[in-house]
């Protein structure tokens, strides 16, 4: 059977995507195509629906309406099939690891669940490579509970990229990191992007977005209101972004579908 075009150059395709929690609408019809190998930043005020959109793409939660195709597979109304989940990585605010396991035990556990490597030796080698890739060698045998926020976040990235996903989704990965931690984390993301991974990142940090992303979309009250591709320099991005969200006293009031596509 021929694969849908979505799996080729457009690994993520959403049409009129909606999500409501009970009677509260959070996403009100998102149309989005994400090209393979791109680094898309999702911007917007608190409550705009960025994290919900990312969690829909990751398969953490299900859509209420519309259509969603991830890597060629229809992901609505169900959740992504295991074969699709195996090609997605997700980094959230929280590290999504077991605090009582060591760095190595955490990675070995998730490597096992993702079927990384053909045998135990190869799996152990991949775990070691993941540890090295985020420079966690010195902390490999420490329990996650004893790690700093920055180190935990690098562990989260190692966990999410261990199975070499084609799509990596990141929800405010820079939150709470100090300057050296941000630099190290940004370098790891750049390496993944150079390796061809498609990245989608929720962020409030326009500096990081301007430095890393190839495209930035702005959400407001559950709607996509702007799409910057390529991403303008930080100063211009800030000015254009503020023009879109600063007149919104709640950070998410609807004033109409102001779609800005340069």
């Amino acid at each position: 059977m021929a694969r849908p075009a979505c799996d080729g150059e457009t690994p993520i395709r959403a049409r009129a995507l909606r999500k409501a929690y009970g009677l509260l609408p959070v996403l009100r019809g998102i149309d989005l195509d994400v090209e393979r190998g791109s680094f898309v930043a999702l911007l917007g005020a608190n409550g705009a629906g960025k994290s919900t959109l990312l969690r829909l793409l990751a398969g953490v939660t299900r859509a209420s309406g519309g259509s969603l195709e991830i890597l060629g597979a229809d992901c609505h109304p169900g959740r992504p099939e295991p074969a699709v989940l195996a090609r997605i990585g997700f980094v959230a605010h929280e590290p999504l690891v077991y605090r009582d396991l060591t760095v190595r035990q955490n990675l070995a556990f998730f490597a096992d669940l993702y079927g990384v490597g053909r045998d135990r030796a190869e799996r152990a080698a991949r775990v070691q490579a993941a540890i090295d890739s985020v420079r966690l060698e010195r902390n490999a045998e420490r329990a996650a509970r004893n790690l700093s926020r920055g180190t935990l976040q690098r562990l989260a990235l190692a966990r999410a990229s261990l199975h070499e996903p084609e799509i990596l989704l990141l929800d405010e990965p820079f939150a709470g990191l100090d300057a050296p931690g941000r630099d190290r984390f940004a370098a790891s993301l750049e390496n993944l992007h150079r390796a061809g991974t498609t990245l989608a990142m929720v962020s409030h940090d326009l500096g990081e977005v301007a430095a890393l992303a190839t495209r930035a979309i702005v959400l407001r009250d559950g709607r996509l209101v702007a799409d910057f591709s390529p991403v303008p320099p930080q100063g211009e991005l800030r000015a254009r972004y503020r023009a879109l969200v600063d007149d919104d006293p709640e950070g998410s009031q609807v004033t109409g579908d102001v779609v800005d596509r340069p």
Partner: protein
Amino acid sequence: MWSIVRKDLAIERRTGEMLSSLLLLALLVVLLFAFSLEPERLRGAEFVAGILWTTLLLAGTLALNRSFVLEREAGAWTALALCPLDRGSIYLGKTIANLIFLLVAAVLLLPLLALFLGTTGIAPSWLLPASIVLGTAGFAAVGTLFSAMASRTRAREVLLPLLSFPILAPLLIAAARTTAAGLVGEPLEHVSAWLVLLGAFDLVFLTAGWLTFDYVLEE
């Protein structure tokens, strides 16, 4: 599935929190029974079996709650839900790990009960381990399912017993009856119906948990 079992055992090896709290609470409950009831009446097999299962139920509920607090902490549960595996196998993995903890507690609790209650006339038969394995399996099956549901709420400590105790009532009765028979070496014919009930209970709730866990994990 076995990766999840190994992971839970590894966490317990590192922290020892689940078994130690389970055993300490079980010991306290046994002591309370021993001090508050008439000693002569406690020595019968029926009382030992009843106290064993009541203690396991109370202490086990605490341990089952703890099992899912570990999963929710730091959002590990979300990472688990995103792994490319059947969610039913996550349920079975968690159930097997909880079953192991409950079995260890039961095995350690029995001699303690005999010691504190001064039980006499014990002549255990194969029915004793069979009743304990089948009873704890049913408890783990129901407890794992409901503690996963309750763990998403703030009132999880209260919600788990409220949800699970009414459903566990027939299991508790059947397990206590077959354990009592197993303690004194009663013939199988006397308790075969209870044993069938235990097996059927396990089968029904393991299947229900395996089939419905997809929805339990859903946000």
